[in-house]
């Protein structure tokens, strides 16, 4: 059960009961000028199961969630509702929870090679993923994203530009096309692509990531992070999605890998 609340006094996002529970776990959060709160995972009685920094990497968060879910048979078992989903969805969920073996078993058949390729991609078994995709799976999106993961950006660009506008993964493909262009040193091209995602898709998962990438890409090499502004749209320094800016970690897809 996810809960969001603000520790600040008088905030409409405040929650006195939540604050009491969290402050009992971390008394530093009871007062004023508190450090950035961790993310807490509690049992239904409010006892701490685990916690991690707000600034933890995606990998750390995933590891934390997998640890919590994996430690509970009830949470990690497939539910009746989940069992009715498609093979691709069921295997993906198994994989996300950390049960790679079960995930791969579900998609062992040839007809499920796209789902299998995706898991192999995340396992960073790129050659195996390419073999799984073979020649008969028509997915420029998956092929292109795979090559981004494998840091083969020229190949990725060539594949991702073939993903049509009506493809359900078009937004994702465009986002990764931007990443590939950025990694090739074509920052202006990349920014154009990301702006295109934002303009086309508005409030969308890939727009969020594009916006993050866009803002981070504006940072000068060796310089500090791009300053964010609270002075409104007239300043010209708002992000593509109108955000003041992005604090915290930089978009990990922009780390130079090649």
């Amino acid at each position, binding site marked *: *059960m*996810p*809960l*969001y*609340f*603000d*520790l*600040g006094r008088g*905030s*409409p*996002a405040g*929650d006195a*009961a*939540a*604050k009491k*529970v*969290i402050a009992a776990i971390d008394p530093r*959060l009871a007062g004023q000028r508190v450090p950035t*709160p961790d*993310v807490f*995972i*509690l049992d*239904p009685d409010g006892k701490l*199961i685990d916690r991690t920094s*707000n600034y*933890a*990497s*995606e990998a750390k*968060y*995933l590891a934390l*969630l*997998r640890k*919590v*879910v994996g430690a509970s048979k009830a*949470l990690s078992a497939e*539910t009746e509702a989940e069992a009715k989903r*498609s093979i*691709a*969805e069921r295997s*993906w*969920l198994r*994989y*996300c929870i950390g049960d790679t073996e079960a995930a791969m078993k579900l998609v062992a058949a040839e007809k499920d090679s*796209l789902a299998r390729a*995706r898991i192999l991609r995340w396992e960073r078994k790129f050659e195996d993923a390419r073999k799984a995709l073979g020649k008969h799976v028509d997915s420029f999106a998956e092929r292109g*994203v795979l090559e981004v993961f494998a840091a083969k950006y020229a190949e990725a660009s060539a594949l991702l530009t073939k993903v049509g506008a009506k493809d359900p*993964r078009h*937004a*994702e493909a465009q986002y*990764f096309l931007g990443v590939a262009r950025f990694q090739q040193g074509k920052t202006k091209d990349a920014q154009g692509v990301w702006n295109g995602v934002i303009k086309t898709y508005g*409030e*969308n*998962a*890939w727009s*969020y*990531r594009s916006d993050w990438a866009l803002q981070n890409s504006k940072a000068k090499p060796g310089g500090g992070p791009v300053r964010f502004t609270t002075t409104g749209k007239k300043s010209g320094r708002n992000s593509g999605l109108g*955000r003041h800016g*992005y*604090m915290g970690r930089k978009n990990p*897809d922009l780390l130079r890998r090649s």
Partner: protein
Amino acid sequence: MRLKIALDTVLLVGRLVGLPAVLALVLAPSIQAEEPPSKPLPTVPDDHPVRLDRTGIRWVLPYERTQATARKTNHPMLIKAVAFGTTKSGCW
């Protein structure tokens, strides 16, 4: 609630600054990323700043309700606290 995690690099960076994107992934784990909501989810009160969130996280508010649901389903609670002094418009 089941901690449904989708690894895909959707990694939503919503308006909740600093919220690691992977937490946003309670999306259905499909090959194609599920479209995040364009309107507030029904689990969020009309006047709560988190109504602006479009990550797809099904927030359960307030804490009493979070805990009651967690007890009923025997699921853990994931508490994301900020200290911004969030305003009604989602700013700080």
